[in-house]
């Protein structure tokens, strides 16, 4: 077995150990197989180029799989069914619902998550239910967490992930025909090492909107995988981040258009100060036959210091001919002319800088709470 000591120890532990007894209905064999066959992500693999995943393995070994003294906190409106993985009803819902949308082979950390899982919930928006009141996910009682979301045909669901701690979190969602899933993620600044996976599959005419505001962490990695599996599906991803100190944030987003007439938009605005490091990989994959696809990605980044780093890379893979696909990526610094203009109106340098940074992020994120979280409260 190759790899770093932490990697070897973790792999051995995962393969040797039985599960905790939590959610016994969960089939962990595919996860075990993947770890056995493929192993953990290699340190030098392209997808992990910018994030030293060894440091996450160390955190897994150090934290164990439980996180003490954090009671699960999910608030939901009556029309939405929320059940803990520990309840037999969760097994029923999981069995009755669509198959898993996670590709474990490309997401081995999700396999680690499954083997160490201590906290999970199914969130179901029943067919035709249009709920405006959000489901709020606060803390979940475990380092490894899985939230399974089923938005049934014609239903609509709003889910808010409040800032909370985890070592690995999976949000797995299926949105059936003409369903709507509105997803807010708020990530507060943290000294921890946190990885997450959002995997969403959209059926015909379904709609998914993700708005993610992030502060940095000692290590923070967000994998986001969205598949437009039915015709005319729509996905909108908006991301804003603001990093300081030694923060590390790695966003890996992939939107896959499998059927015709899909629409996707990705808009990112990020600020890195001090010696922080921000990564954004935004992929758009358009399958053969996914004609009349309209996809676009825009990422703008500001470096607020010489030592800050940003890696922003759009990646297109297009196998259909009749499509519209645009992308743009910029990395810049604060506009000196704008700074001077503001100062010439009596606004001090610090205040002027704050207003400029806030304005920059607000182009992506207009939501007040999200803006507050990234430190931009008006």
């Amino acid at each position, binding site marked *: 077995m190759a790899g770093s000591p932490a990697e070897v120890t973790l792999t051995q532990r995962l393969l040797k150990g039985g599960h905790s007894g939590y959610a016994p209905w969960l089939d962990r064999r595919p996860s075990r197989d993947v770890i056995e066959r493929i192993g953990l992500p290699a340190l030098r693999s392209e997808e992990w180029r910018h994030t030293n995943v060894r440091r996450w393995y160390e955190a897994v070994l150090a934290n164990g799989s439980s996180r003490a003294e954090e009671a699960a906190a999910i608030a939901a409106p009556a029309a939405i069914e929320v059940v803990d993985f520990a309840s037999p009803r969760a097994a029923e819902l999981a069995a009755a619902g669509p198959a898993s949308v996670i590709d474990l082979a490309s997401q081995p950390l999700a396999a680690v998550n499954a083997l160490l899982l201590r906290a999970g919930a199914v969130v179901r928006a029943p067919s035709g239910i249009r709920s405006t009141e959000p489901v709020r996910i606060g803390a979940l009682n475990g380092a490894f967490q899985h939230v399974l979301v089923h938005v049934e045909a014609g239903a609509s669901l709003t889910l808010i992930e409040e800032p909370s701690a985890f070592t690995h979190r999976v949000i797995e969602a299926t949105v059936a025909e003409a369903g709507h899933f509105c997803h807010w993620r708020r990530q507060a600044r943290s000294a921890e090492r946190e990885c997450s996976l959002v995997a969403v599959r959209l059926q015909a005419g379904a709609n998914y909107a993700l708005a993610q505001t992030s502060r940095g962490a000692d290590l923070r990695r967000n994998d986001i995988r969205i598949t437009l599996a039915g015709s005319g599906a729509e996905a909108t991803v908006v991301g804003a981040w603001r990093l300081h100190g030694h923060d590390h944030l790695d966003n890996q987003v992939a939107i896959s258009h499998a059927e015709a007439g899909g629409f996707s938009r990705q808009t990112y605005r990020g600020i890195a100060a001090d010696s922080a490091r921000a990564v954004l990989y935004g992929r758009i994959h358009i399958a053969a036959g996914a004609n009349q696809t309209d996809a676009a990605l825009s990422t703008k980044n500001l470096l607020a210091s010489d030592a800050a780093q940003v890696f922003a890379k759009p990646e297109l893979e297009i196998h259909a001919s009749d499509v519209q696909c645009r992308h743009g990526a910029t990395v810049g610094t604060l*506009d*000196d*002319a*704008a700074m*001077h*203009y*503001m*100062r*010439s*109106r*009596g*606004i*001090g*340098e610090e*205040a*002027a800088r704050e*207003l*400029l940074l*806030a*304005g*920059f*992020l*607000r*182009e992506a994120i207009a939501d007040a709470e999200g803006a507050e979280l990234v430190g931009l409260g*008006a």
Partner: protein
Amino acid sequence: MSNALLEVDSLHVEVDDKPILKGLGIAVQAGEVHAVMGPNGAGKSTLANVLAGRPGYAVTSGAMIFDGVDLADRLPEERALLGLFLAFQYPVEIPGLSNMEFLKAAIDARAKHAGLDEPSAADFIKRAREAAGRVGLSADFLRRGVNEGFSGGEKKRNEILQMLLLQPRLAVLDETDSGLDIDALQVVAAGINAFRSANNAVLLVTHYQRLLNYVVPDRVHVLADGRIVRSGDHTLAEQLEQKGYGWLAS
């Protein structure tokens, strides 16, 4: 003249080690409107920018005294808080920051400097709307990003709006008249005339005499090759309009 609101004396300014202003002198009293005219490249914007403290303009000798304060070591925001205002020749676009927020920040900074309470949101909005109305901009322009997508004329109106709102002691207007159609020119002129008072002063920097038909200056100065080469009353502007700048050279 020690009681001048602005006194610029033997000012030498370099940009990228290149001398641009070469011993420029001008004195403006409270209650006066002065026009500084001159051909393109004479150094008019350099004068305006160095007064406002724009980085990149090195004062190598001479002095700029504003209301008894030597401007040389003052930051741009300090100059603004002392009551100096520059209407930019090329106002800057700031997407994402609403005009309203920008103006509120400027007003709040000024209130704080004066040791006053910040105006309430309602009071501020009322004042901002009123100023916008006076320059013929709808309230919509207050919600939009600062100068974002504004036409040339709308940007100039927005500069005058800021002047009316901030009520500086000295307004330096750098080619605020250029690129305006006749309606916009009249709106801008009306704004300047409404602003004029015995306590403040205006320095109109312009290439053309046109604006001076509406805002009659007390003094007209001709700036050429970094110096004031001639000063006179408003009739000097008319002469320049007829004869151009060539006859003043040498």
